[in-house]
């Protein structure tokens, strides 16, 4: 099958070339040869099946194996399709799919997050509602928050496999060391500040050796803190971005207070040393497994990593602390993990079949979602005995956190707002910018971006 496809690809490339100039034409053969061979193909061999090209970021290790297992099972259950799995860097998957869509060669399905649903505004996604209607997909069997995220202007544009809920993790060993009660983690921001301060380990020159807590740490999303301070992000009635700017001023001042407390440069050094690309979650030396941090906020997906890389760490999970007196404060946001079918893909039927399979198969829920420690998006799957038995986190996430979190709305311009909010934090912390001005400006620019995307 691999060989056959290569030939098809190069022939197609060559046909496209016919419109080109004479010099270009002579190059067509050459170029066709150059791009054809796909080493990444891992699909099942097949006869007269239709190919389904799937892009994900699951490259190596446990999660990649789980992904491949799910794809293989899809091929067994749906012999009419031949899935082909292509791995893309996580950080680039969205950009690359968009560009490939613009180029007319997108995958048939790809794995992304709820906020990408906003791409429907620029026509980058296949509307899945006709498929959902034709195949009687049970939409009622999704978490309401997740179902909302799957829809754009009332139509389903994504199928959710699982829903990310963020926890506050706390290191009980460190709490004991610091004389805190390991069984009563902070529930409010004020408590978090106070308890975190007890567990810092700072060198004489200000260098942070071990950190109790800081909101500037990698992976702590500005979106979640915004929710915890009582802000919304989207005004459905108006159809544009709307933040509770007062809550954001308070939030930015909170960030700033951490800058003042530790020294911005010390926080930056800590973050740069361990953050993002430094100390990953897949190594026993990772920041979470060695007590380098006592309280941190991150998705449920870290749970199994904790078991794998830090089996000796005594840790607990709790809802994200919120500002006590803030109305509407929620313990972070929830984000659906989604499968999308890009517009103008070669095999939308296959793309939808795969997306639907990923969101509804008990096999996937048990063998893919659980190993990744994320909760299935369908209540019927999240209440399977295997899920209940998986660990304390599933029940906590399902029954206590998810019903109370703010759903991360899927609107166009989501990426721009995220960048603008992070810039605001940096501007306040590093440049002493005025929080009210900064946030008003970020919102104004993001709203304009939404208008622009609408055309």
């Amino acid at each position: 099958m691999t060989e056959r496809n290569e030939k098809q690809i190069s022939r197609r490339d060559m046909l496209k070339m016919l419109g080109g100039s004479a010099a270009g034409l002579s190059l067509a053969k050459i170029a066709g040869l150059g791009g054809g061979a796909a080493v990444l193909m891992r699909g099942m061999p097949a006869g007269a099946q239709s190919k389904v090209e799937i892009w994900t970021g699951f490259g190596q290790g446990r999660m990649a194996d789980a992904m491949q297992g799910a794809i293989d099972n899809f091929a067994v259950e749906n012999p009419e399709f031949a899935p082909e799995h292509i791995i893309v860097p996580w950080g680039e998957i969205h950009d690359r799919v968009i560009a490939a869509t613009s180029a007319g060669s997108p995958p048939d399905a790809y794995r992304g997050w709820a906020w990408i649903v906003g791409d429907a505004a620029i026509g980058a996604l296949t509307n899945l509602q006709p498929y959902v209607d034709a195949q009687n997909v049970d939409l009622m069997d999704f978490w309401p928050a997740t179902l909302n995220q799957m829809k754009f202007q009332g139509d389903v544009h994504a199928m959710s496999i699982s829903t990310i809920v963020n926890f506050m993790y706390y290191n009980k060993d460190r709490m004991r060391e610091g004389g805190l009660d390991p069984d009563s983690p902070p529930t409010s921001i004020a408590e978090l500040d106070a308890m975190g301060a007890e567990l810092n380990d700072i060198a004489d020159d200000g260098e942070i050796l071990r950190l109790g807590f800081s909101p500037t740490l990698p992976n702590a999303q500005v979106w979640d803190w915004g929710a915890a301070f009582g802000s919304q992000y989207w005004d459905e009635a108006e159809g544009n971005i709307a933040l509770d700017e007062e809550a954001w001023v308070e939030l930015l001042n909170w960030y700033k207070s951490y800058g003042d407390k530790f020294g911005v440069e010390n926080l930056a050094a800590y973050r740069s040393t361990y953050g993002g690309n430094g100390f990953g979650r897949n190594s026993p030396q990772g920041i979470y497994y060695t007590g380098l941090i006592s309280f941190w906020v991150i998705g449920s997906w870290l749970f199994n990593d904790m078991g794998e890389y830090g089996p000796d760490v005594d840790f607990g999970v709790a809802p994200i602390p919120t500002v006590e007196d803030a109305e509407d404060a929620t313990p972070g946001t929830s984000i659906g993990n989604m499968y999308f079918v890009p517009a103008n893909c070669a095999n939308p039927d296959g793309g939808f079949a795969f997306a639907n399979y990923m969101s509804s198969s008990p096999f996937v829920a048990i063998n893919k979602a659980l190993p990744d420690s994320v909760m299935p998006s369908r209540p019927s799957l999240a209440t399977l005995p295997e899920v209940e038995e998986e660990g304390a986190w599933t029940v906590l996430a399902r029954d206590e956190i998810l019903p109370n979190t703010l759903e991360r709305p899927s609107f166009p311009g989501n990426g721009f707002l995220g960048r603008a909010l992070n810039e605001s934090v940096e501007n306040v912390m590093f440049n002493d910018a005025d929080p009210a001005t900064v946030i008003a400006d970020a919102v104004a620019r993001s709203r304009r971006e939404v208008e622009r995307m609408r055309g």
Partner: protein
Amino acid sequence: MAVLQPAANGRRAMTVEERNYLLLQRLRSLIKHAVLITFGIAFMLPFVWMISSSVKPNIDIFEIPVRLIPKSLRLENYIDATNAIPFWQYLWNSTYYTIFATIGAVLSNTFIAYGFARVRWRGRNVLFIIVIATMMLPFQVRMIPLYILFARIGWLNSFLPLIVPNFFGNAFYIFLMRQFMMTLPKELDDAARIDGASEWGIFWRVAVPLSKPAILTVAIFEIIHTWHDFIGPLVYLRHPTKYTLSIGLRLYFTQYGAEWGLLMAAAAMFTIPMVIFFFFAQRSFIEGITLTGLKG
């Protein structure tokens, strides 16, 4: 520098002045070398650090104080690096892109430069000034329209947008080759013309053979440029199977964060072909840079 001629053949005994002068010269030379060696080491350190990190086990990577010479070797990093991403596929894509981009650059620029350097015709100089002026037009201005153009004719996700333009000349290379061709003696052309050679014949049998150093220079520049090219593949090659190494290296930053050992091993494997290439082509290389048309 040497104004005095110190003790030729050592036959004559040196005067005190001469001896002091020699001493001074030695001291200066010593300082010169000390400065050069210091900076030289500093310049090589990043590469040394790359190699050193590439053979360290993950545990040793995060070690304080830092260690330039690895405590223990883990050469498997190199094997793991080629397995973690489709390394060989990307290496081939890079090679492929480099080969055809270089062929394009050499063929077109030799041809075009001949028209500017050796054929006299009306409008030549005006056109050549336009050639030079295009160097000032940033890639970014052309990026978006070309992206749209290539999207419309279905060239995106192939190497065509990267390779085809190379067959139509490049201002910098035209400039370089023209400068070189101008230095070739005119009499050769005239002799060939008297022998009845056509303009094409002069180009092919006189200019091309004599321009070999310049052609080689263009080839070398283009090989390095293409091998390094980041923004071109970033914009035009969106399909993961078509990545070149410069794009593919970022795959080591996966959901796990960076695997520095593997990343450095891959970076080393990406760099080493250029180093080997340089040692073979070093002389033309240096000459080429010198030749960039600076001699009045």
